[in-house]
């Protein structure tokens, strides 16, 4: 299969090897049915940034599926496959999971090998899982987790059996989450967040309380610093990671009799506008004289964010927030407003900066004219404690009443 990363510069590029996650899945007997669409090199939040196709949201074909791994989310949402993989650099698994009404799991940084993942921002990139249920996402994570000698940043920690923690509804006590300390990030349910999204989250919170957990609001003052720091770091790393797409060894090369125009032409031709924007931002941030003001400062913010999450997770078992400030929006709505699109990543980027695991599961709907669009909430756990997130998520989804997250367009085929 071709590997384009949604970019024209890799049109028809056939990779010479399988990514480690794909190899592991094949070893487990998985059948790979296809590759899915995404924003070019993972840079975007709508999948409109693909050089090839626009992917629609199965809940409303006029809406975006989210992004960047919107194709993977839409494919699972539309039941075209059982599970799918995506990559999450700043929310690219969790936000489309929320938009498409599926489960999205972003593992701890280092839990899953990145070998074979086309790099966007190496210190933030994580391969994540989509499924229609927490159980499916957990099974997929189990298959791809663990140290890989081809990725020096993959962790050598043992991988527990995630699925053994799953308890069927039939065996629950009345309050299966008794003792679970839940912190709600107050910055994520205030101004600038869609009212209906907030009320869905509040619904999820009271459901968690019914299940026995104690829920408290907690403030993370560093929360708003995450977004700009994220864009500086991600752009910086991407400007470097994308240098290899120069048209010399693979990918589209333009004919030129001069070296710099070969580079310039191949890259001008091959990259889309959002990718160029981030390469420019990143190159600027790493330039002599600006490095300290941008890259270095962003790294300092990252340290602050990590510390504040660590402190909060010493007190609470899990932290919760919306997965995105709104539900899915119309295709084209934010296409020419990159800042508005960037702002939509506010809920997710801090988690990447901190390297923590997070699970997004559908918890409600917002009205969208005649139809409804799903909304997901995000549970953030301590590093390498995916197990807890999966256990809580599994209990949550089994007990959530009156919600079926099958898009109407295919509901007839999936009566349950």
């Amino acid at each position, binding site marked *: 299969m071709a*590997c384009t*990363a949604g970019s024209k510069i*890799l049109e028809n*590029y056939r*990779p*010479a*090897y399988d*990514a480690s996650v794909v190899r592991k899945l094949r070893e487990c007997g998985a059948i790979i049915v296809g590759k899915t669409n995404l924003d070019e090199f993972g840079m975007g939040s709508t999948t409109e940034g693909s050089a090839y196709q626009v992917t629609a949201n199965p809940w409303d074909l006029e809406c975006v599926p989210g992004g960047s791994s919107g194709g993977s989310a839409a494919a699972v949402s539309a039941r075209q496959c059982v599970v799918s993989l995506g990559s999450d650099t700043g929310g690219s698994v969790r936000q489309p999971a929320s938009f498409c009404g599926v489960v999205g799991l972003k593992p701890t940084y280092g839990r899953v090998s*990145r*070998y*074979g*993942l*086309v*790099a966007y*921002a*190496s*210190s933030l990139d994580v391969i994540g899982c989509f499924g229609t249920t927490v159980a499916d996402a957990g099974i997929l994570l189990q298959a791809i987790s663990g140290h890989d*000698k*081809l*990725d*020096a*940043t993959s962790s050598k920690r043992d991988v527990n059996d995630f699925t053994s923690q799953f308890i069927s509804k039939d065996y629950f006590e009345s309050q299966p989450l008794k003792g679970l300390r839940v912190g709600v990030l107050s910055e994520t349910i205030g101004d600038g967040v869609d009212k209906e999204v907030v009320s869905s989250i509040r619904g999820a919170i009271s459901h968690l309380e019914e299940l026995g957990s104690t829920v408290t609001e907690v403030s993370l003052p560093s929360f708003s610093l995450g977004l700009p720091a994220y864009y500086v770091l991600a752009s*910086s*790393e991407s*400007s*470097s990671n*994308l*240098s*290899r*797409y*120069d048209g*010399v*060894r*693979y990918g589209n*090369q333009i*004919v*030129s*009799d*001069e*070296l*710099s125009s*070969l*580079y310039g032409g191949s890259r001008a031709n091959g990259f889309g506008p959002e990718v160029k924007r981030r390469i420019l931002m990143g*190159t600027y941030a*790493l*330039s*002599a004289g600006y*490095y300290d003001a941008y*890259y270095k400062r962003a790294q300092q913010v990252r340290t602050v964010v990590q510390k504040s999450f660590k402190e909060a997770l010493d007190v609470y078992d899990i932290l919760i927030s919306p997965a995105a400030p709104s539900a899915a929006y119309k295709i084209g709505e934010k296409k020419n407003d990159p800042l508005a699109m960037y702002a939509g990543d506010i809920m997710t980027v801090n988690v990447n900066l901190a390297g923590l695991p997070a699970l997004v599961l559908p918890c409600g709907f917002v009205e969208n004219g005649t139809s409804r669009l799903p909304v997901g909430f995000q549970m953030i756990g301590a590093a390498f404690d995916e197990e807890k997130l999966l256990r809580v998520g599994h209990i949550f989804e089994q007990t959530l009443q009156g919600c079926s997250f099958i898009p109407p367009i295919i509901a007839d085929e999936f009566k349950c």
Partner: protein
Amino acid sequence: MALTLFRGIQARPLLPCSSAFIARKHVLFCSMQSTQADTTVKTKQQAPSNFTETARAKAVEKVLKDYEAIIGIETHVQLSTITKAFCSCAYSYGSQPNSCVCPVCMGLPGALPVLNSKVIEYAVMLGLALNCKLALSSKFDRKQYFYPDLPKGYQISQFDIPIAANGFIDLDLPLEFGGGHRRFGITRVHMEEDAGKLLHTGTGSYSQVDLNRAGVPLLEIVSEPDMRTGIEAAEYAAELQRVVRYLGVGNGNMQEGSLRCDVNVSIRPIGQLEFGTKVEIKNLNSFSAMSRAIDFEIARQAELYDKGQADEIVQETRLWEEGAQKTVTMRKKEGLADYRYFPEPDLPEVILTEEYVNGIRESLPELPEMKRRRYEEMGLSMQDILFLANDVNVAHFFDATIAKVPDVKLAANWIMGDIAAYLKNEKLSINEIKLTPEELSELIASIKNGTISGKIGKEILLELMEKGGTVKGLIEEKDLVQIVDPAEIEKIIDKVIANNPKQLEQYRGGKTKLQGFFAGQVMKESKGKANPGLVNKILVEKLNA
């Protein structure tokens, strides 16, 4: 996939350093002779002619009366690890283009580097050997620029925290260059990866990329600007090569590019405090080229100063042209290149424990400087010391020889005399001959205890070097044991005297010089085996009887 590898780049006409690559192309297709050929002492003999050498030295000497030259050197040493720095490809010089490559060193999408731990080990070894302070926690950084031989668009290197820094190197200048001990500072040693190579077609219409060398581990060693002459600089580099070879971390071969030196030269009128403008010289393929290029550059800059045109010395990279014996402008530096260094996110920090470092420190071999000081204590002359210690294989041979028969002088003389002459004639290195140090010490012992004569010793040595075998075996086989029995010698002398009555008469008539004639006849009769001392003693008695 091969097709994409060999894709042509139509890029030649405006390459920023095309001439450098043309020069490299030449190197690429030439075959190497000896791996030990490039020490200054030897290359001096290969230099164009002694006349120009002396003239050049004189010219520089004159310049250095008025000016002080400031010379710093950046050296890249290729490490001879089995696999590359960040992937499991094996690299060997001269392989078919693009035959030692994998997704990692080709920079394919999604491929990630994993550090070869041998690189750290070698870096620590060299850092310790250069008396550096080691950073127990260092990291890798990306140095970013575009060039077709750099597959990722960045080189994995170390920027603000090198693995080793603040060291020095000690050396002894050869006597023919005035001799003397020198200590030059080492600013830093850091780890990085090599780039590939461009191959230009004969027509010049396109270029090809060979990525075999991409990802090969390098140590970059930056010196303090402590050198003042071309000879000092060349000796610094030669000493570095020796250290590398003594440690066994690389082959240090300049012609293959396993050891590459870029030199910075500036001069200032003596007494002036501020430094002059620094000029970088590249394309130095031997130590003698280095020494000549620097001296040329010093003279060139001095001439500009003399003419009042010092402002024409600009910050630039100049290329040494071996044919014309001069440096020419390769590219002017317009401001500093911005490599946009930032920490390599694909690799964890490099953490060294004290325990690990101490383990390496304890296992370091004897280094050239220690060896020279030890030889000095043995009473060898500096000339002998340098000869023996310059080549690690010669030093090992010498050490093994004197381990058994500790006659330092004799061992040195044999190695520097007959053996060195043979090696030079046959174009061999000492570990390529059949003679073992054990047999050399046996030979020395046999001469010392009188079993064989020195003359026979020389003959046996030749045979041992050519065909091998043992001293004992050869002596027996050829019946070469020296005749030390006075009765037997007396018998031969009697025979010689009886056969030459005329000469005897003349001798006794006062022509005593004829003693030499009789001695020669006796030696001839004994096939060279008679002990010369005994022969003379008995002969005198008999002739004067």
